């Protein structure tokens, strides 16, 4: 067997339990080797690589435009954000100016994507904890977002909507109306989720005080996203290193103090609210105009050197590190993804918890496995 681990059982009271790679609660092909003493976890060793698709090698074998379809598939739940992040990274390097209307469209599409990612998280997290209803409610609302984006982009999940210099197609009045209707509708739905999920005593019992991240983890692991904000640190790439036109928007960065699963859940619900606020402002201010830059070079040749670019995805900080040698094919393209960071903390966070808490913790950090493995 290619991936068995040599285990010499020295004491007969503990045992190893394999969770995954096929498991309903691992959200993909993640394997956790749990060292258990009865039902208490002594150690959790995440084994990744079951979803490795060689994105970084593919980046070295094709030019910058040909890599665009890969970007959505790295984290398919924030596919629009990832797709636009790549476009924005290249635009920053080559100093391509994106027209105003395209920027606003990108903000709307990106934030809608963020809400749909959080809705899916909500549904699947509750499914792991044993509640099926939020899954159905969440997916129904998510379908509304997907309809809006599908009408413009043609895709439901893996978008290639962004192009260097703007977006592929302009949005029409129907899109803007549908989005406005959705905001109104969804603002009334969030309290439903809060009552159904956050106010549910079973959910609270299973998530309060569970999976508390020790504060040392912040500096050791470079946490970002809801995991970091649940520990009281108001850090968000959209505020710390604003990209696109995020400086023009007013929104709060929600924080909690407890650092447990419940805190992370509260933050994601609040983030959905804040995204609605951003979309409403974008709809109010969107100008008319072109959606594609006038002059985009046909062959993209970034000057030789190294470039970093980060965005805030639904899971945390997503960063591109591009090394260019002056040609139209990158020399190295490293993707730093938030789920990689979050899963690497699992051995420290899960130790000492019960087996059923392992499921609660894994769901609360909201991982997408192809993002870990790339």
């Amino acid at each position, binding site marked *: 067997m*290619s*991936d068995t*681990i040599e285990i010499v059982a020295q004491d007969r009271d503990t045992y190893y339990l394999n969770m995954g790679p096929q498991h309903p609660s691992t959200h993909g092909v993640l394997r956790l080797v749990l060292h258990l003493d009865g039902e208490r976890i002594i150690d959790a060793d995440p084994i*990744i*690589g079951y979803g*490795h698709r*060689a994105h*970084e*090698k593919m980046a*070295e074998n094709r030019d910058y435009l040909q890599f665009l379809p890969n970007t959505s598939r790295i984290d398919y739940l924030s596919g629009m954000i990832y797709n636009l992040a790549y476009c924005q990274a290249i635009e*920053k*390097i080559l*100093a391509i100016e994106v027209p105003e209307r395209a920027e606003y469209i990108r903000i709307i599409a990106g934030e809608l994507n963020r809400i749909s990612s959080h809705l899916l998280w909500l549904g699947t997290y509750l499914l792991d904890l044993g509640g099926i209803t939020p899954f159905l409610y969440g997916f129904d609302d998510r379908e509304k977002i997907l309809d809006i984006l599908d009408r413009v982009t043609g895709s439901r999940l893996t978008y290639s909507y962004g192009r260097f210099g703007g977006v592929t197609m302009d949005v029409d009045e129907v899109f803007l109306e549908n989005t406005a209707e959705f905001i109104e509708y969804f603002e009334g739905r969030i309290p439903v989720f809060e009552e159904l999920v956050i106010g549910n005593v079973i959910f609270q019992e299973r998530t309060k005080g569970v999976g508390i991240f020790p504060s040392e*983890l*912040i*500096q*050791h*692991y*470079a946490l970002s996203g809801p995991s970091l904000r649940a520990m009281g*640190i108001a*850090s968000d790439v959209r505020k*710390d*290193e604003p990209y696109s036109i995020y400086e023009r928007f007013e929104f709060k960065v929600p924080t909690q103090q407890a650092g447990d699963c419940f805190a992370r859940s509260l933050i994601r619900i609040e983030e959905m609210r804040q995204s609605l606020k951003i979309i409403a402002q974008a709809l109010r201010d969107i100008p008319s105009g072109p959606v594609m830059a006038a002059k985009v070079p046909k062959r993209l040749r970034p000057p*030789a*050197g*190294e*470039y*970093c*670019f*980060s965005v805030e995805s639904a899971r945390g*900080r997503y*960063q591109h*590190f591009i*090394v260019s*040698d*002056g*040609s139209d*094919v990158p*020399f*190295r393209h*490293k993707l*730093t993804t938030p789920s*990689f*960071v979050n899963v*690497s*903390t699992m051995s*420290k966070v899960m130790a000492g918890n019960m087996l059923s808490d392992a499921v609660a913790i894994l769901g609360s950090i909201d991982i997408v496995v192809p993002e870990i*493995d790339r």
Partner: protein
Amino acid sequence: MIGEKLQEHAGITESSSADYAVSGYHHVHKALASELPAVAALFFENGYYLETMTCIDERASAGDEKEKKDDAEDEQTAEDPGAFRLVYQFDKAGAPERHLITTRIASGESASSIAGVFAGADWYEREVFDLYGVLFAKHPDLRRILMPDDYIGHPLRKDFSDQDPRREEMASE
């Protein structure tokens, strides 16, 4: 300011500033491979965190048939086979202050692990070992992370060719 402390540090051989608006980072420093744990400790004490870490395969002998020469390779003479370049990115919370630390690891040389300083470096170093074959001395648990444990070869090297015996079966025409 950490900039001055770095410039005084024995492990740093060269420092320069970068244009944040274009490159996305503020400073880049060249470091000696053996001094990396000490440099990392300096960042840790000053409240920085390790944002990411990666490796770039710049071995000239391993380059493929691409004719173009970039600036870095111009400096390499015929005797210099090039090296792996490790890049570490350190940043601070709040307003970013990104420092890139780069160091060269020649083929056959080992790097020093900084997992003792930053626990999060553990997985990054395992990934570099898995995909490039660079060994890290004093790493707590250096094993493959993405490829199967019994895999032969290091896929992200420029001269990598797939030696998997199942390759023919698993590839379609």
